[in-house]
């Protein structure tokens, strides 16, 4: 990927992270219950975090 193309993609990823780790999206998952035994909020945060890192790796290494 061209170096110039990387910048907007990274900015978009950051903005995606800001939205997903913020009110009100965060509040949607601030509920009881579990996913595979893990409380929903914890599972959500770690899953989104991992996804974000994977996307960053994808953009950085291309």
């Amino acid at each position, binding site marked *: 990927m061209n170096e110039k193309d990387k910048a907007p993609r990274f900015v978009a990823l950051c903005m995606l992270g800001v939205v997903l780790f913020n009110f009100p999206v965060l509040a949607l998952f601030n509920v009881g219950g*579990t996913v*595979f035994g893990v409380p929903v*909020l914890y599972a959500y*945060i*770690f899953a989104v975090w991992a996804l*974000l890192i994977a996307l*960053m*790796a994808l953009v*950085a*290494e291309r």
Partner: protein
Amino acid sequence: MLQGPVVILAAFAYLGVLFAIAYYADQRADAGRPVIANPYVYSLSLAVYATAWTFYGSVGRAASDGIGFLPIYIGPTLMIALWWVVMRKILRISKQNRITSLADFIASRYGKSALLGGIVTVIAVIGILPYISLQLKAVSASYLILVQYPEVVMPPVLGEASVRQDPALWVALLLAAFTIAFGTRHLDAAEHHQGMVAAIAFESLVKLLAFLAVGIFVTFGLYNGFGDLFARAAAVPKLKAMMTPLEGVAGGYASWVWLTILSMMAIMFLPRQFQVTVVENLDERHLNKAIWLFPVYMLAINVFVLPIAFGGLLHFPEGGVDADTFVLTLPMVEKQEGLALLVFIGGLSAATGMVIVETIALSTMVCNDLVMPVLLRMRSLALNEKPDLTGLLLGIRRGAIVLILLLGYLYFKLAGEAYALVSIGLISFAAVAQFAPVVLGGIFWKGGTRKGALCGLLAGFAVWSYTLLLPALARSGWLPIGLLEQGPFGIALLKPLALFGLSGLDQITHAMIWSMLANIGGYVGVSLVATPSVEEHRQASLFVDVFRQGGEAGGARFWRGTASVPELHSLLARFLGAAAADEAFEEYARSRGRRWRRDPLDADAELVHYVEVKLAGAIGAASARVMVASVVKEEAMTIDEVRTILDEASQVVVYSHRLEQKSRELEAATAELRAANERLKELDRLKDDFVSTVTHELRTPLTSIRAFTQILLEHPQVDAEQRSKFLGIITKETERLTRLINQVLDLSKIESGKAEWRESVLDLRELIGDAVTGMSQVFEERNIKVDVEVPAKVAPVRADVDRIIQVMLNLLSNAAKFCEPGRGRVRVALRDDGGALRVEVRDNGPGIDPSDQGVIFDKFRQVGDTLTGKPHGSGLGLHISRQIVEHFGGRMWVESRVGEGACFAFTLPHG
């Protein structure tokens, strides 16, 4: 077995390993084969971000409010997503200007202002002290708890221990010695400490492994995995509430958001992060991997925080054990001595890593941006005249390291007991966040001025001191607590924790809102009114437009004045040492194709700039400026002149972009032309060969014709029999000539697409019969036996009957030519391949070498009889035949092995 001496021995053994690693890496660096020059070590060294605070404090925070510790790591992840835009720029600027610290960066950006550099240093030192004290607290607490094994007893209030018995003091002194050994072995113009970086990367591994070990032990050893652990915790109402922690908490989301923002700033502007990310960076490209590897590290070290916190809360329900110590006390209470010791070492590695890098970074700032500028201005010291100042520089740094660690210890004694680990760390985060507006503004906004930066920083720092530092001291009893409860002089509006009546927020959020307001307001507001100086204008351009300017020489364009080479050299020698100065001048001379001390050097703007940048690496931009100014007579440039140069520069950039484009286009065109030329040359060569071949073929029959006509002309007495024989020869040779000429013309017609094709439905059986009959005389003459195998009935094809006959005759005459003389045998076969008819003409001649089989169909190519090397015919027949066959949608090829004859075959699709 975990008595004091054993633990101390283990700690020393660990530090010994660290030192060995650092020593080895330094040796390798000196030998020019660095071990740290790869993105993985770089990424691991960034993990110096995870300190004792992460190691012990995250669990403590998680035990009180669930996910409250996560923004500290999610924030950096979000910030790092922007690193491609922000950090790459800072890296480029820093490399071009030899920036060696955050203070240097800010001072350099705002007109190389020594005042600004000094203020940044003071803010950084005061702001970071709590953070350093946190590490001391963590190490000494973990030591005191561990040596109580097998009892799990919280240590007595640490501050009350006598100074000599206080492990925190010894830790501080030990770390000071260690840091001095690591960080100030010699003076490096680029401030690279490769040994330290290698050791830090190793420490990052150790603390991660130790933490994961505890996490796995708690989750899978004490409980049956995540599900079991969380299910048991959910049974306790108090713990269940922590699983939806954002609900109903006052300012829950606000606190989350501000912590995220704070951490985004911290990952950029903590002095130790700036040190490892920017100053120690060896290659800008390492950023590519670090951008995702470092977040992966943060994710990994956080996975087990919640399980450990819940495990601890379930294990110590009565609350006698500080949650900050769960990582250590859980293995202890389960009698896991080895694991407990590993945790202690992990915590030690987290703390030492932070302290070493932080104090090196701070000592560089203190030396270059605080002490040196003052010393250089004190004329009574006459430092300008001293021949070698490297010893002084190292001395200042060593002193600064000891001083900073002792100050950290002092803060620990003064205020350390009042707060949990995380809160202490956040106070430091809030302090360094004050650098964000001037740095980020500085690299994207040319309008930011020195006065604006000064105002913003001072205002932000003042608010920070008032809302965070002051309460910390008051709570520890060093200031009257009434200050917090009633406000100074009883003015409620000025209460440090509820400034101007803003309440209901946690302390950090409250402080961040007010300090950022003051900081950004001051920076932007004053920048907009203040007029920048020439120097500021120049530096602003160099920083903001760093990607548009080429190389380090960028700064030289703005300089006018006179200097002398010996003076510049002795200046450099004073701060870097004579050897390093010689090396620097040699490098400069080489880059200009000259030899230092042999060829004369011009003391021009570029050399002056080069010396200043080199000097900046050792003593900071602001001091370097002062020193260079002392030896050169500089002519002031007006702001208009600088503007003109900048305008010219941007015009040049535009031009050079255009030029680049043009030259790229030209290159492409040249490449095309070259390729076309190659094709033409090849064609020319083929044409040459063709002409040569054709002339040869024309001359041979012409020779006979001419010879015999001349004979007949000059020897009229030749008898009738001979005469008619000669005339017969002449006729035959004439026919041969005609045939050749026809072939050449035929080929040119086919190739130019002017040939006439008359298509009709053909029966190939009939056509083959006609062709063989036509050639029967030739075969008989040469005593060749011909077999024809055709099926009773074949599908019709559509083609030009004359052309296909031509193909057949060509193949048959070739076969006749190459047949074994005297015992010639030619077999013609017709088969239906399904979809196409296939004709084969097989001879029993010498065969065709495999290497020639590919080329015999090429135009003008002739492959001679393998036995004689003599070509037969013009070399056009097969080429024309193949063109004809392909015109009708078929293909033509040859199968042959040397010595076993050749089989020419072609297909024609069903009509």
